[in-house]
């Protein structure tokens, strides 16, 4: 029989406490005066931390700016945040503490769907306005009238996510007839993949390969070989960063050929991923939210990036993906509170539904479900990438926008042929 001595328990307990302690972020910031407190959980450790920390950096830039301008409705602003460790299970406790103990005035979400879904029941119960960051079609089931989403996926996000890919594919000559679909076994990739398949009826495309893979997949060669054996005209992936890297390497190693390859990969939007993959991404066609093309030169975006990039040590060195979205959230909050003139959750929600906001990602208007009333996901083709240098990705031309038409900055290069 095992013996549990006090000393051994103490030793074990110490290790666990130390681990748990280090897993938490810096505690909520100290308060002074009567600031407006904006609370949120954020992935500062764990698998989503690279994007969570980049979001936090952008939010802190806004905090410095707003306080430099004399605060919000005459009061200083403080961000109150805790590390959710990229674990949705920690979110309900954090949100409850933010509302009941820290008494935050305004509430934002952590990064991505995994941090938003667990917060929703509490937020709805407390009737708080909830501005979320990169949550994919989260409100379709809750239908909460104070929910607002910072992801340019539109009101029918599941379908709209792949709309650009299919629209651009339809412009090719000859028209593609078949498609292979590969997605990670996770909530967002599954929804995006289902949305694509819903869209296919309109485009007369036959699915010749349709498989998902588990998050523990190490070797992607068998998947790409099976895709190649099915000889599809189009190949559509929905994957997360490590898988995206594995898939792109395997595409190159197998020498995959098709008319168009890419789709819903997450990873290529991040600077360190772009430099890691370099020319291997040439001619891949992938979704995005911002790239430095001249057609996307929204007011304030260059200033934000100029402030973010010097403080991006250990984070996304470009900051094209999460920082503009996180910053735009703060801009919307600022404009809404300023116009309403007080912290009144109902009045804020009403104002946010009724008005258009000017942000670093252009004008944003929300529909009745809190999604962007006009979907605006970009479809980008990587072109003329030479080597793995970072600077080339800061210049127009390497990430040509193919969709939507109002932001188009280049023409599709096809067919796709990976060089072995």
């Amino acid at each position, binding site marked *: 029989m*095992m*013996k*549990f*001595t006090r000393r*051994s*328990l103490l*030793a*074990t307990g110490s*290790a*666990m406490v*130390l*681990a*748990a302690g*280090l*897993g938490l972020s810096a505690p909520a910031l100290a308060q002074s005066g009567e600031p407006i407190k904006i609370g949120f959980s954020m992935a*500062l*450790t*764990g*698998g989503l*931390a*690279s994007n*969570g*920390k980049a979001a936090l950096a952008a939010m802190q830039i806004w905090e410095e700016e707003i306080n430099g301008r004399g605060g919000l409705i005459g009061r200083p602003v403080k961000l109150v945040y805790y590390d959710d460790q990229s674990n949705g299970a920690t979110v309900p406790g954090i949100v409850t503490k933010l509302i009941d103990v820290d008494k935050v005035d305004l509430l934002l979400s952590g990064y991505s769907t995994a941090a938003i879904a667990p917060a929703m029941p509490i937020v709805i119960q407390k009737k708080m306005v909830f501005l979320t960051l990169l949550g994919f079609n989260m409100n379709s089931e809750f239908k909460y009238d104070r929910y607002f989403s910072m992801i340019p996926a539109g009101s029918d996000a599941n379908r709209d996510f792949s709309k650009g890919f299919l629209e651009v594919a339809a412009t090719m000559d000859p028209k593609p007839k078949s498609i292979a679909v590969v997605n990670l*076994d996770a909530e967002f990739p599954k929804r995006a993949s289902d949305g694509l398949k819903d869209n296919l009826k309109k485009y007369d495309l036959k699915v010749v390969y349709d*498989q*998902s*893979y*588990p*998050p*523990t*997949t*190490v*070797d992607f*060669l*068998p*998947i790409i*070989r*099976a895709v190649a*054996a*099915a000889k599809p005209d189009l190949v559509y992936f929905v994957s997360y*960063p*490590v898988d995206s*890297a*594995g898939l792109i*390497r395997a595409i*190159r*190693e*197998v020498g995959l050929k098709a008319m168009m390859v890419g789709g819903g990969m997450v990873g290529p939007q991040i600077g*360190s*991923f772009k430099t*890691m993959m370099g020319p*291997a991404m040439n001619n891949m066609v992938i979704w995005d939210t911002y790239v430095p093309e001249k057609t996307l030169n929204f007011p304030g975006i260059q200033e934000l990036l100029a402030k973010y990039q010097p403080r991006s*040590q*250990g*984070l*996304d060195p470009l900051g094209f993906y999460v920082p503009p979205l996180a910053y735009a959230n703060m801009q919307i909050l600022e404009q809404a509170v300023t116009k309403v003139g007080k912290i009144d959750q109902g009045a804020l929600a009403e104002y946010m539904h009724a008005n258009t906001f000017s942000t670093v990602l252009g004008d944003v208007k929300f529909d009745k479900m809190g999604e962007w009333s006009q979907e605006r996901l970009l479809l980008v083709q990587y072109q003329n990438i030479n080597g*793995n240098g970072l600077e080339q990705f800061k210049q127009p031309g390497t990430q040509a926008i193919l969709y939507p038409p109002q932001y188009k900055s280049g023409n599709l290069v096809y067919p796709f042929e990976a060089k*072995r």
Partner: protein
Amino acid sequence: MVFDPGLLLNAIVSGLLLGGFYALATSGLTIAFGMLDVVNIAHPTFIVLGAFATFALNQATGLDPILCCLILLPVFFLLGRGFYDVYYRFFERRGDAAIQGLAFFFGVMFVVEVSLSLIFGPNHQHVETPYAWTNLGIGPVDLPVRMLIPCAMAAVGIGAVTLFFRTTFIGRAVAAVGQDEGALRLVAIDPLKIKRLAFGLSLLLAALAGGALLVVQPVDPWAGHTFIGRVFAICILGGLASMRGSWMAALLFGVIENVTATYLGPSWSPAVAFGLLLLTLAVRPQGLFAR
């Protein structure tokens, strides 16, 4: 799907290459868990620690990651000895090794992961090598160097340790210490010294696997979670204390994963591979390759 012999051949070959990497990742655990009965759940995290140490040395010196990894092996050997001392002093000596030891390594896993995140940041790290994108295809068969090198490292590393266990007196003592400590004392060998050495070897092999992992894919501080289930499953399939057994089990695991992914779909791979583990536990609980 139309049967394509090239597709099957590629699935088997890539499975063998993947299995080679799995064998290297499992070899250290075979020593710690199989031979010493230490439930080192942090073993995959030590592999990731090896990958990050290799990355840091590569960034500092510009040397090839494999060479960096080899330079770091003595450091990890000493680290392993030190860890075993702590483990022995606070847990094993009192006979509290089972659940408290598991909790200890669970805590170590968290501390290492968070420390790596604080030092290197949460991003994925990778090294660029001249051979990263090279495919030495022979006819229809793909042989990506990215997977070939870890397989070769496994053959050399596991081969050397197996030879050490079989041909040296100390090596045989390592193989014997988990079975009968009293017998070792009778021939004037201190079991603690042998276990310390063995755990050092376990972490040395983890560092070697870490160098290989960095060649295979980008790593983040939490990359070890992907391998926890696999390495314990392979260790058990291989017969716990058998280096040869875990090598064979790893190859089998890799081939089953890749053939299943090719013909049934990748989402079936873990179900089929772990199904084999359950079947083995039911009909041959000592492992497929136990003697």
